[in-house]
């Protein structure tokens, strides 16, 4: 049976408690990791965690460095760091286990009735990667893409407005499609990869049973790889879009 999210309706909103829980858990893990690294941080005697976080910082600086001048990209360093840590931790969270409960019609959560999509009985998945929810990836993408547009207007005003009409005015629709496709591809790539990984885990576990342990381990290892790559790609593309937006390339 398909797993559905535990959703309750209130004030005209749909509260997906699995997503909310996972967003909170991921945020707290990232925050605790970062705070642990900073606790007791020093200039000449870095702790292990500090070394780790500095390595992450260097990594993101390198990503920025491949797309634009590091000095220009400096303001986006903390955004990139937060994104890569949040997405990586989020991608990893769904891998090790899942929590599924069985609910019957009329079950409640915090005094609110769960939406079982009209079924009498449903399996609710409480634990998943937050990034396996398209709303989450869309929110992250919107932040990034809005920021690229704002920064483009602010720091590269003339070229920003001109680039919609390049090389000729009739190219406006194409340029607009390009601008729309950027957030779509960014959000859907991350969502698709992680969601597919979780679906595959679900299929292996429920379909193969004990025989599935070996393919499960293999698939989880691959998912770790995919999760890391997707976190990297998301931040990389963020910086690429940012550099396209704020840097006016001289024509030769």
């Amino acid at each position: 049976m398909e797993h559905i999210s535990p959703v309750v309706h209130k004030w005209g909103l749909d509260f997906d408690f699995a997503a909310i829980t996972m967003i909170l858990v991921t945020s707290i893990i990232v925050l605790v990791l970062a705070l642990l690294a900073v606790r007791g941080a020093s200039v000449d005697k870095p702790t292990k965690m500090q070394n780790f976080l500095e390595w992450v910082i260097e990594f993101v600086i390198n990503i920025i460095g491949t797309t634009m001048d590091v000095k220009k990209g400096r303001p986006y360093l903390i955004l990139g760091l937060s994104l890569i840590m949040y997405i990586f931790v989020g991608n990893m969270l769904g891998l090790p286990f899942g929590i599924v409960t069985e609910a019957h019609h009329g079950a409640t959560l915090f005094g609110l009735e769960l939406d079982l999509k009209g079924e009498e009985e449903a399996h609710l998945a409480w634990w998943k990667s937050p990034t396996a929810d398209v709303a989450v990836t869309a929110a992250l993408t919107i932040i990034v893409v809005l920021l690229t547009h704002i920064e483009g207007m602010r720091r590269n005003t003339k070229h920003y407005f001109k680039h919609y009409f390049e090389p000729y005015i009739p190219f406006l629709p194409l340029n607009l499609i390009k601008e729309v496709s950027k957030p779509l591809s960014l959000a859907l790539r991350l969502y698709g990869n992680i969601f597919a990984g979780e679906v595959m885990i679900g299929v292996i576990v429920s379909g193969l049973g004990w025989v599935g342990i070996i393919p499960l381990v293999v698939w989880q290892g691959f998912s770790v790889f995919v999760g890391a790559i997707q976190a990297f790609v998301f931040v990389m593309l963020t910086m690429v879009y940012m550099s396209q937006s704020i840097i006016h390339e001289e024509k030769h």
Partner: protein
Amino acid sequence: MDINWTTFGIQLVAFLLLLWLLKRYAFGPLLGIMEQRKQLVQDQLANAENSRKQASQHLEEQKQALQQARKEAFDIIEQARSTSSKQADDIIAVAKNEASRLKDDAVKDIESEKNKAIAALRGEVGGMSVKIASKIIEKQIDEKSQEQLVDQYLKEVSSK
């Protein structure tokens, strides 16, 4: 595929909050520390460069001082050598002078002694020859001639 806009909004707010918290409490301080470390490393590199320069300068100075000392030592030895040879020459010259003076003195002494001896000998010989002559005369002169002689002396004395 439908987007749960509530989740969307929650995620939006949550991520912005996370971003702010991380910036405020984690990455801000850590980046500051990294900047400080960069500064520290640069300072130390500059210090090392300075020390190296100073060391090479000192080495150069030491070398020059050594060269100077060597030259001075050589000069001193040279000077001592020339002084010693000069002194030796002086000593030899003085000794030669002394020797020749002594020789001259000796020659003079010998000369004067010889003269003295000759003079003394001459006196002696005169006296002896007088004595011999007087003895011969005593034997040979008789009364008569003695008288004559006495007379002659007397005459001589009286004529004076």
